[in-house]
């Protein structure tokens, strides 16, 4: 049933499109006349066009059944149920949002308060830390000076002894 090249003067896609369009009666008059001329000389297209015509009329026989009379009513009920659910979700969101607002405001205030408090204590620590360090450093310096004084005395005593020997 497939298309074999070389047996028809038309390109595969063009021929298929013409066959389908011819069976569907959707070709414009010029293309239809041209295709009918082609059919006279091409047995393959002739056969396929006849088969496509048979398919077309067979498909025509398939008429859809009548729609259920309660289709619209059922749909209306489903839409109403959907709207009810949506409105409930909206109401719930509204309900949950209303007390959430002051709670969020209080939380923000508390958070701000604690943040500021933390910053204040941190600043205090920073401020007190250098003075304590300076005090410690001064104490260390004084201790070092005392030690140096003691060592200096010993060194000067050693120098006077060696001078005498010379």
């Amino acid at each position: 049933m497939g298309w074999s090249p070389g047996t028809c003067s038309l390109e595969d896609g063009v021929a298929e499109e013409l066959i389908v369009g011819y069976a569907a009666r959707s070709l414009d008059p010029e293309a239809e006349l041209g295709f009918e001329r082609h059919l006279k000389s091409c047995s393959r297209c002739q056969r396929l066009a006849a088969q496509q015509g048979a398919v077309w009329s067979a498909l025509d026989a398939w008429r859809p059944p009548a729609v259920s009379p309660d289709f619209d009513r059922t749909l209306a009920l489903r839409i109403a149920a959907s709207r009810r659910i949506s409105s409930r979700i909206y109401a719930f969101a509204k309900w949950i949002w209303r007390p959430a607002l002051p709670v969020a405001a209080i939380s923000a205030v508390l958070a701000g308060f604690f943040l500021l408090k933390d910053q204040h204590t941190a600043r205090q620590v920073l401020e007190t830390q250098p003075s304590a360090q300076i005090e410690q450093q001064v104490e260390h310096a004084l201790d070092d000076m005392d030690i140096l004084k003691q060592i200096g005395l010993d060194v000067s005593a050693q120098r006077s002894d060696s001078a005498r020997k010379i």
Partner: protein
Amino acid sequence: MNPDGLQPQVAQPSWDRRVNSSKAADRFLDRDADLMLQVREGNQACFTLLLERHRNAVIHFLDRMVLNQAVAEELAQEVFLRVYRFRLNYQPTAKFTTWLFRIATHLGLNWIRDARHEKVQERLDQEIDGTTRQVRDRNRTIEQELVYRAKLREVRQAIETLPSKQRAAVVMHKYEELGYVEIANVLMCSESAVKSLLFRAYETLRMRLAHMA
């Protein structure tokens, strides 16, 4: 170059008939988009109008896709429910029917994918059930009716053998009379991909149904 005198430009089927009819359809396009915009503004009556205009097309499309009327109606309800739910976000950037059939196709393909693992027998039962649902034509004799039902069963079976995307393309092309471009927009693929889908599908159908001539 072409012995039959069919130049490519001429040979290319121009879809003038569909294009011409689409001029009339453009009015519907504007009307549909306008109605949907009014639905967005809260006009419920416009939704009812849209439902009346497209209800049957959507149900019939889904019925031919899933081959089960009850499922088709259930899915069609879901389609219109989604249209209603998304009304606030609706932007008339594409044709309303393209959007509508895109939702329907998406739901139909998903259903086919999920139902693929079900028992074959169940599907056959549904199919038989589906064929028996057809309203009997009073003008046909019992014999003609039996022949018709056998033919219908064969058509349904042939359609059922098609891969789901091919099936969707054929149903939109044959029954909803959508052009290649519109089918491509619904299936979100290129026009050439749609042509390829359709031609392969029709080739399969020719193999299965050509003897019915």
